[in-house]
């Protein structure tokens, strides 16, 4: 069963002479429980595609359906609520709130969902334990290494038990060891709880852990590589 269905996705930026056509009509599906990598050279449109799929951006043309909801038709507040309840994000630059401790960063979306402080804290500790950060609950992001910050971001994405996790080049700012740890963590989560993950990466080594690799070039899907 497909959890994501993208139909004829176009995305353009600018007007007239400076108009840039980044996505040129992409049709794509992602099955529930699938771990998909989107690969391509710089400028191929892989991040732009992920932003459309993860409803951080709106396509200029075409539509996206996630978990049976036509997200293209949602208003701003509804999109925010949908992201909160259905999706989890791991960004390239970790995207942690610098003023909040590791546990508070993880608690934030849980509190927004209406959990009590104690419930959110308990869940945050559990998520941080899962990414081997049991001793770093109170640490501010600035006192954590890049790999640790990315694991906090993963814990935050996972804590709300989202239906899909979107990871935008999660290893880009990490050294090889930390990058490998993050990919192993995502793979473990996928295999352990059948978590749907869509990951953008430009490193084939990391993409090899996925079920499927979608290759992009110049705004189009050029090849789909089935690994499992």
């Amino acid at each position, binding site marked *: 069963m497909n959890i994501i269905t993208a139909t004829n996705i176009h995305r353009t930026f600018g007007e007239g002479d400076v108009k840039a056509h980044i996505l040129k009509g992409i049709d794509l599906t992602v099955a529930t429980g699938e771990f998909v990598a989107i690969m391509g050279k710089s400028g191929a449109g892989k991040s732009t595609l992920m932003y459309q799929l993860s409803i951080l951006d709106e396509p200029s043309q075409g539509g996206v359906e996630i978990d049976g909801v036509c997200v293209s038709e949602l208003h701003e507040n509804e999109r*925010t609520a949908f992201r*909160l309840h259905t999706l*989890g994000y791991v960004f390239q630059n970790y*995207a942690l*709130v610098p003023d*909040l401790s590791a546990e508070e960063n993880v608690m934030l979306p849980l*509190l927004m969902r209406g959990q009590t402080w104690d419930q959110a804290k308990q869940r945050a500790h559990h998520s941080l334990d899962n990414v081997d950060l049991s001793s770093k609950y109170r640490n501010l992001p600035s006192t954590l290494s890049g790999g640790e910050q990315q694991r906090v971001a993963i814990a935050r994405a996972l804590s709300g038990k989202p239906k899909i996790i979107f990871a935008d080049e999660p290893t880009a700012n990490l050294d090889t060891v930390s990058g490998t740890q993050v990919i192993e963590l995502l793979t473990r989560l996928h295999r352990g709880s059948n978590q749907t993950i869509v990951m953008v990466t430009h490193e084939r080594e990391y993409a090899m852990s996925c079920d499927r690799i979608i290759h992009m070039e110049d705004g189009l899907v050029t090849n789909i590589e089935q690994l499992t």
Partner: protein
Amino acid sequence: MRTLRIGFLLGFRQIQRANFWTTTLIIFVMMLTFLNLIAVSGILIGLIAGSERAVQDQSTGDIIITPLDDEDKILQTETIRRTLDTLTEVSSYSIRYQQGAQVAANYKTRRDFGVEPNVVGARVRGIDPINEEAVTALSDYVVEGEYLNPNEAGYVLIGALNIDRYTDGFADITGSLTDVFPGDSVRITIGEASQEFTVKGIVDAKAGDVASLVYMPEKELRRLSSNSSRDADEIAIRLADKSPETGNAVKAVLLSQNIDDLAKVRTFQEALPKFLTDIKNTFSILGTFIGAVGIIVASITIFIIIFINAISRRQQIGILKGIGIDRKAIAVAYVLQSAVYALTGSLLGVLVTYGILVGYFDRNPIDFPFSDGILVAEPIGTLYRFIILFIITLFAGFIPAWIIVKQNTLNSILGRK
């Protein structure tokens, strides 16, 4: 509720982790703004309040009784005196008699009529030195010589405005005595009668006519002016409690006993010269205008601070929205910061105002020619200004935060325009 909770968490942590000196500077600016609101208008009004206080303390007392408009004297002064003796709220009163007079100083040495006479026209106030002292503490304003002794006769106090060394050039306009010092003799003429007195002291004060009068015991004045009537020109009353409420209550008691058929009874506020109340109103408007400018400056300051703060965290705001945090919660975080800056700055301003400035200006009034300026900071006025500053600060914090928060989520995350 959860929006507020998230907003408070984000806002509180931002304040907690912010640079200490930056936060201190912002709060200091807010405190100065608050002081500007309170102190500038407070000192402007305080100039007049100081003058009013001086009139109350040094001249009129808390209640002043004067002749009816169509009478020269207070009727049945003795009846009024007996009434005042029955009122427990009245701590003291001074019955005053007044006459226009001519005071001459060089009449003994002026052999050549080509020499200018050393003469001034002045009003002479006849007082009971003990009662007057109890009401106005007149002896406190004796700047040279001594106060009148009730057991001595033939002495006067001369108001400093009648003496040239105190008038700083105004003597050309008002006329004054030259080279008159305590111990000198002066001749006071009322109508056809003259008598020589010794200057016992010089009186100087800023209130009303205190420094322009000549003072002598009332018996001597009535004898000099051949006035056998006991009906007086003024009765200044000092109350045990100087509050306006007590003043009004005692006035009501006096009116209930029909004293208003014999004389005009006014509280000191009612007896204030109209020009004082006019100036007070003008200064109040001026203070409000300056305060309004202060509020505008404060709101712009907060706007800029929050705008810079929010725009420097634009990417973070985008990410928060990206992970599903309601934009109202994010805006609340910045409004909370504004509120904390305004509250802390204002509270410090209140502490400085009431803990330092009011007391300081009370002990060291600003020396203005017509009054001793104090700082007037009525608690209710301070509260109003605080509420106005607080509400405007909240708006000044909300608007820039909302401008940033409502930007496109992805553009914010990627730092795109």
